[in-house]
Every structure is written in structure tokens, then in C-alpha cells.
């Protein structure tokens, strides 16, 4: 699991590469929270284009990020979601809470 970040104005883009499961989730959440703390973005984009696999552990990660952005008064969008992660997100109904685009 690799995390790369890019900042442009008030927009922070967080890009994930690899497989997101429970094994990876804990360390990832800590890293994501550190990024938000440092950048204090208005908009946050979570780019899942490089994600080969995700299970329900990823849902909890996205919800945490979403809540953190809410308290910062900003917005989270999840982009470039591949086929397998999208099926997991669809099954969870998280698209009713978080902005998700394939």
C-alpha cells in the first residue's frame, strides 16, 4: 500500500496504490490523518485509481476521512474507483454519504 499526496490551492489529493485491507488500514488511517492535519484542505480528493483490491476495511477508512473533512468544514470526494472497489462501495451504500465517482 502506497500513499502519494499532491496539493494545489485548497485542494489536497491523496492517491492510493496497492491493496487496502484490514492489515493495511490502521497505518493508512494514521498517515491520512497526518496529511489532513498538515494541509488543512478545503477539498480533499481520495484517488483510488491505483487500488487493485479493497474490502470493507476500506469503507471504515473512507468514513473516517469523510468525518474528519466535515469537522474541517471541507468536503471529501472519492475518484477513479476501479471495478472491484466499486462493487464493495456499492454494496455498502456509502455512496449515499460520500461523493463517489468511477
Amino acid at each position, binding site marked *: 500500500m502506497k500513499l502519494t499526496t499532491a496539493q494545489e490551492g485548497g485542494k489536497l489529493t491523496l492517491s492510493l496504490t496497492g491493496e487496502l*485491507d484490514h492489515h493495511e488500514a490502521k497505518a493508512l488511517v494514521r498517515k491520512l490523518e497526518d496529511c489532513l492535519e498538515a494541509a488543512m484542505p478545503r477539498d480533499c480528493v481520495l484517488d483510488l485509481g491505483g487500488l487493485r*483490491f479493497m*474490502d*470493507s*476495511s476500506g469503507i*471504515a477508512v473512507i468514513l473516517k476521512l469523510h468525518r474528519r473533512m466535515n469537522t474541517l468544514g471541507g468536503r471529501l470526494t472519492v475518484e477513479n474507483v476501479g471495478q472491484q472497489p466499486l462493487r*464493495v462501495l456499492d*454494496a455498502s451504500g456509502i455512496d449515499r454519504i460520500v461523493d463517489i465517482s468511477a
Partner: protein
Amino acid sequence: MNELNSVRFEFPSLSCNEGFARGAVACFAAQLDMTLTELGDVKTAVSEAVTNCIVHAYPDTVGPVILRLRILEGDELEIQVKDHGRGIEDVARAREPLFTTGGDDRGGMGFTIMESFTDSMRVRSRVGAGTTVTMRKRVERRRKAR
């Protein structure tokens, strides 16, 4: 139901084995002519079941997880994930969407995903003895007609 082939793995409930279990089921399922979507579904279901053993069955210890895979007559894959951990008090409740005893680290969607990504899911559990989750996934027939 006639069994055509089977494998059995036993490994300790370490989170690094979640990826191993997904890889193992993908390798074994290669003997069936699955679509990428079906393969993704099966890997996801296994990941959920094995993660539950690691997170919930053995919360403060490391214990054995048994993954048994079978190919059944009629292009069907059976996945069984078994632990000897703490067990589930109320299985019906545990299977409900969003139910979790894992706090905000978990989404409570594991069983929901296992159930919707396979054709059937059976959960047998006894408190203090352990849990066995058995899922079956049929490979779409139309692909065989080529």
C-alpha cells in the same frame, strides 16, 4: 454434491495472512472458468471472513484459522473459513448490515458483503468454541457454452 477437488490451509490469525488467503483462493479458483468480477467477489468474500477471524475471533490472542476450498460438481466453488475463537452470541444480529462490535475501525458490512457476493452463506457459531462460515459461488454457465 460431488467434490471434484479440494485444498486446506491452516495459518495463524496474523493480519499479513489476509493477503495470503486472497491469493490462495484466486490460485485455486483458476481451475474454474471465472470472470474477473466473479474472481473479485470471491477474493472479497474470503478477505472479509478471514479478517473477522483475526479481528473478532481472536481479539487479544493469535489462534488458528482454517481455510478450506472445494470445487463441486456443477462449476461451484465452496469456501469455508473456520476459527476456534470466541464465537458469536447472536448470529442473526451479527449478520445484519452495520452491526459491529468493532467500533469505528469496522464498518459492520462484512457479512453483508459476503452474502451479496456469493450465492449462499451459512454461519455456524458457538460461544467459546468458534465460528465456521461456509459460502458457495456458482460460476456463470453461459461461459461454458462458447
